[in-house]
């Protein structure tokens, strides 16, 4: 109860401060609003977290009208406290869960209290729980999943009872929740998976169970931990797609078929000429998922990148520069009467509508994919050269087939070099506005990257017909949205001048994140862990390894240990091992990631690390009688615990302004409230 009380009070204190948009609230708050407005958007994370934020906002009377344009915008009189409060409440559960988990694992109240204290008084955990972010929701599900897994492990001698099933199913539900918020949830799934495999392995070795029993155990777990989360996860997406049925800023990332579902999109119940004709104005979309529209603009390729001609790229958003006009080889003037249809094998010239340059390719190497040729915009007002000619082919078509809008997959073969128009999917550097590279590939294999479809089609001389385009089924949408998300995720590369945080910075609390405010006059919040807590965690990681090494060598050499000692080493190896595994799984994978990383990615791992600290320190204190004799060892234990508690509390008192806001001069100036607390040069408060 004490833990719960403290936890809620630290998280909910000064919740509505500062009354402006902080850091990533600008994204997640906005996405919450999109749910309320039912507008389709694109994000690299799965939808559950944002749906819950949206729901919390809706319940607390927020009407979804606040634009969340940039950090620092004042909320005025919008009801933003509901969304923040929701996140804070979920965040407040973390210390409680940590308490329960450590209690289950170690059977020691002291260990549990240490773990909970570390989390309650960690400024980082407080800060990250207080704003409209996905992390508190994610961590809630992660911890809940671990807790129910641990509880489930305790039920091992009561197989198939109601409580057994309850905890098993609860684990599954929480796994779905964790994955539904962020893909980081995968790590806790791996943790639970490994634990389950270990559990099954134990059952398999239990000769009192028949193979049928084992199969039952296996099936029960497969159902609750694989099938159930999967169903829930898919359901979340189903809700996502049903709720968001209006066209919005995310359309261009998806295929033409996908867009036709969205109310307000120009493809929704679209009507346009059915067959492509000469003289039509069109947009051409690459068939690769998240492939983008064929695009050009006034900017030239920079010096040293092929010929210095106009850039041609693929662009994900809808834009006037995506419009191209289909011309015959020679004539430019529009004919009277019905225009001729473009057929399979026809030679066309594609003119960019805005700049009147022709789509052009030549034997220079492409900017990024060096094996391919460069594609440029060349010529003006229709005059160009022989390198502007492309042969249009319908995939699987024969000579004379017309080109159907939206439905035909077409390829553009360059006449002079024989290469095929191709979108490599690589992002161009700054000079190309981070749009996607378009090349001409000499390898003629039919891949989605070299196939295109005609999406918009404008030709006033042709009759419009209504196109009831093949509506995609749910599985197709699901798959497509996932591929788009993964692309988006790996596309988040650090930009040139941007601060990139390295994974090794995190456990040593090297550098925090500015949530709000830079200058002395502003209200500043800085996400930084309580250094005392974090350094204790770091030290206990080392301590844990030493203790486990000593304990296991002693066992392996067959030294005779007391009953109590054996229990301790079991707790260390089993319980500690589980937490250690959790920490590793939530931390180590970041070293291999190429995407941009932030400090807050460490917080799930930090939860595991804190729990491990509780367990390790408790056993360390209890093992004091190895060195000291009974009365002294007891005193040592008490003093150690009190000292620990006191140092955590005092450091929290020192550093609490980090979470609850600081004003006045920056810390390196003498007049600041935080003067003298800038223990590391890299902290920026």
């Amino acid at each position: 109860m004490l833990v719960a009380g403290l936890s809620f009070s630290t998280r909910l204190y000064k919740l509505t401060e500062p009354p402006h948009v902080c850091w990533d609230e600008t994204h997640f708050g906005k996405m919450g609003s999109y749910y309320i407005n039912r507008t389709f958007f694109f994000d690299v994370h799965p939808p559950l977290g944002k749906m819950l934020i949206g729901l919390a906002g809706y319940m607390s009377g927020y009407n979804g009208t606040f634009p969340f344009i940039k950090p620092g915008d004042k909320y005025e009189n919008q009801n933003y406290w509901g969304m923040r409060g929701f996140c804070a409440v979920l965040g407040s559960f973390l210390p409680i869960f940590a308490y329960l988990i450590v209690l289950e694992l170690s059977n020691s109240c002291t260990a549990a209290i240490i773990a909970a204290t570390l989390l309650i008084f960690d400024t980082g955990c407080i800060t990250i729980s207080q704003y409209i972010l996905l992390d508190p929701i994610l961590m809630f599900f992660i911890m809940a999943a671990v807790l129910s897994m641990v509880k489930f492990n305790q039920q091992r001698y009561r197989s198939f009872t109601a409580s057994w099933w309850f905890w098993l199913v609860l684990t599954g539900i929480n796994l779905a929740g964790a994955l539904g918020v962020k893909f980081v949830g995968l790590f806790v799934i791996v943790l639970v998976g490994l634990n389950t495999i270990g559990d099954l392995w134990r059952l398999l070795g239990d000769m009192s169970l028949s193979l049928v029993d084992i199969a039952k155990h296996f099936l029960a777990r497969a159902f609750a931990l694989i099938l159930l989360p999967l169903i829930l996860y898919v359901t979340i997406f189903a809700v996502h797609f049903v709720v968001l049925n209006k066209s919005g800023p995310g359309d261009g990332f998806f295929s033409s078929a996908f867009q036709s579902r969205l109310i307000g999109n120009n493809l929704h119940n679209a009507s346009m000429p059915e067959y492509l004709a000469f003289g039509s104005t069109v947009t051409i979309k690459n068939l690769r998922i998240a492939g983008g529209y064929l695009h050009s603009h006034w900017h030239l390729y920079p010096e040293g990148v092929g010929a210095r001609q106009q850039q041609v790229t693929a662009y994900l958003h809808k834009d006037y520069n995506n419009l191209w006009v289909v011309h015959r080889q020679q004539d430019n003037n529009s004919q009277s009467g019905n225009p001729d249809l473009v057929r399979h094998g026809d030679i066309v010239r594609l003119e960019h509508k805005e700049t009147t340059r022709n789509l052009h390719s030549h034997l220079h190497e492409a900017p990024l994919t060096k094996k391919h040729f460069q594609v440029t915009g060349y010529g003006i007002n229709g005059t160009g050269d022989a390198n502007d000619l492309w042969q249009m082919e319908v995939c699987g078509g024969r000579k004379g087939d017309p080109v159907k809008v939206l439905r035909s997959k077409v390829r553009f073969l360059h006449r002079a070099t024989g290469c095929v128009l191709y979108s490599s999917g690589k992002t161009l550097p700054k000079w190309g506005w981070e749009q996607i590279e378009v090349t001409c590939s000499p390898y003629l294999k039919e891949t989605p990257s070299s196939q295109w479809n005609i999406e918009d089609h404008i030709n006033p001389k042709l009759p419009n017909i209504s196109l009831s385009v093949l509506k995609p089924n749910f599985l197709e949408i699901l798959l497509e949205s996932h591929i788009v998300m993964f692309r988006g995720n790996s596309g988040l590369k650090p930009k040139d001048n941007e601060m990139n945080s390295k994974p090794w910075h995190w456990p040593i609390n090297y550098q925090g994140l500015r949530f709000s405010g830079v200058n002395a006059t502003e209200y500043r919040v800085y996400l930084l862990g309580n250094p005392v807590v974090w350094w204790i965690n770091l030290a206990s990681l080392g301590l844990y390894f030493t203790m486990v090494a000593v304990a296991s060598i002693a066992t392996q050499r067959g030294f005779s240990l007391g009953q109590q000692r054996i229990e301790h080493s079991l707790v260390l190896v089993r319980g500690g091992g589980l937490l250690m595994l959790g920490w590793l799984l939530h931390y180590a994978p970041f070293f291999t990631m190429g995407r941009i990383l932030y400090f807050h990615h460490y917080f799930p791992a930090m939860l595991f690390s804190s729990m491990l600290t509780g367990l390790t320190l408790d056993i360390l204190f209890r093992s004091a009688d190895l060195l000291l004799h009974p009365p002294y060892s007891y005193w040592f234990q008490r003093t150690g615990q009190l000292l620990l508690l006191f140092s955590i509390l005092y450091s929290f008192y020192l550093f609490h302004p980090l979470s609850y806001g600081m004003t006045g001069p920056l810390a390196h100036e003498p007049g600041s409230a935080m003067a003298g607390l800038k223990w590391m040069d890299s902290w920026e408060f």
Partner: protein
Amino acid sequence: QLGGLPLVVTAQVDLLLVLVSLLAFWTRLSHLSYPNAVVFDEVYYGQFVSLYMKRVFFIDDSGPPLGHMILAFGAYLGGFDGNFVWNRIGAEYPTTVNVWSLRLLPALCGALCVPLVYLLTLELKFSHLSALGAAVLLLLENSLIVQSRFMLLESVLIFFVLLAFFSYLRFHNAPSSLSGGTPRYIWLILSGVSCGAVVGVKYMGLFSYLLLLVVASLHTWKLIGDKTISHRNVCVQCVHRVLCLVVVPVLLYVFWFYVHLSFLNRSGPHDQLMSSAFQASLQGGLSRITRGQPLEVAYGSQVTLRSSVSQPIPCWLHSHKVNYPIRYDNGRGSSHQQQVTCYPFKDVNNWWIIKDPGRQQLVVDTPPRPVRHGDVIQLVHGMTSRFLNSHDVAAPMSPHTQEVSGYIDFNVSMPAQNLWRVDISNREAESEVWKTILSEVRLVHVNTSAVLKLSGVPLPDWGFRQLEVVADKLFKAHSSSLEWTVEEHRYGTSQEQKEREAELHSPTHIDVDRKISFWAKFVELQWKMLTVKQEESEHKYSSSPLEWITMETNIAYWLHSSTNAQIHLIGNPVSWGVGNLSLLAYQLLAVVYLLRRRRGLKDVPDGVWDQFVCLGCVCVGGWLVNFVPFLLMDKTLFLYHYLPALCYLYLLSPALLEHAHTHLLRYRALCVGALAVLLSIFLTYRTFCPLTYGSPELSAHQLQGLKWRDTWDILYRRR
């Protein structure tokens, strides 16, 4: 066990071993100097060999120096003088270059791999027949032959990996009697030495080394659990293993660098990447200029300031008689004061004079008053006499930072803010006094506490495309773009501007000698090797790791300048398939065994099970550690990166077959099948020989016939 027979058995073994070794030498070494032209990556390694011959310093981020040194040693034996321009694949070697000796050492290593695999299989406790099988698989692998026959490093790497495992297992299997311990420990030391070599040849070798450590620690763990041995004995044995398998390789690794650095003592093309102190230790280059400079920077010193970062290029703080444009292209205004930039070439405009703000004079006192950490100074530009200045005006390219200028008083109420505090960031390692070359200095602007920083953005035409210098408010520790070192230095003697200009144009003098320690050089070089990123470039023959398993890709190594004769890196498809099959089979078998053992059903006796597990640890583990890391790598990768992993599969296949034959399927058909497979391996080897050895020349039609996969890229010359 049969009393009289051991002698005969030994003779048989030797014969087989000798036979495969001879064959290996024949396949790897015959016609080694054909083609007499630069083949594929020889063009890359060759330049380093040349630099070794000329003892010119270089950095290669692709791997530690041992591999290059081995290649250079081969060249040295052949009397290569380093005078060959390695500029394109296919260039003919002149007659003065002894091609045979250049390629000899890799080829020898490649050939020795075959008998090593034979011995290794024996150490894994499988029969001579399996050993022969493994050796034959390796012997007839076209890709390994190609890779061994040229001046490339993979065969050297594979050789050392196999040697390390072989000698470790030899050590482990030797009877641990208390008396005959010495020869046993020779094997352990040999293993440690090979591990050092493995890591010294390529960084990829690190993973194989780690695998060996894991295997060794598992064995040690068992040893610790063995209660029949005394505590003392256990400690001694553990210490021995740690010494041989951890300490020796680490020392050797450092030793390679020691040799590397003591060999390469002349300045060369990569100097600029290194710090000034490092450069000064090389002959020629910077040390020629800086020899005899005064060590301590004093008030009145004339200095050039080099930025500590070398991205995008090394450069020196510079100013010239041109002002910032009043308005930039985007409409923002500037101070219109004199430009301060960073300039990548030596120039008389790079000279600055350190001035005491409290005094007027620009000459050095006798005795000189050195500048210390925390002192406030002014910097005067030597040629224009402008003061280095910064103020609250946005910098031209990085508007979030402050502009740095040479101060001109336009009388527009923009006072001079030209005081800078000297902050020596490595004062703990060096000294409180600002030293030439050694001290890394941050210049902190006194008025705004911003730090002088190279932003690295090139200025537009008005700034002559030189690099932008700014003062940045953010105080981020450990950012080397904030740090500057004094490179050229002399004590100023002329108070008059005209004389000073003449002085700046003249070369420096006075004599002091200085050195940096080997450790400092080692740490710096290692750090640079790991952090210098070469331009990401896609190569025509680069491939992704998943394509390697099925050999979807090949690499054209060489094409004759006029005919169709060509050399490709193409593996033997049949053995490739056999390897993959055995990998799958092992994993399946292991899963089945494990599950059944857990249920108490022991299919094989414990001894055989241990042997089976050991096989898996070494072979499947070896394959994994040599393959999986590539999946996570963001580099340009080639098929030849897969060759070490492939060797483990060849080690696995015959052993697994033997295991299956003795314990599971005692059919004669199995033997016949194995023979048939061996025969087809031999036939495919023969078929691909023309592409492996580059002769005889094939017709276009024949080449077409060799294109077994559509994705292979075989070249035809149009006639």
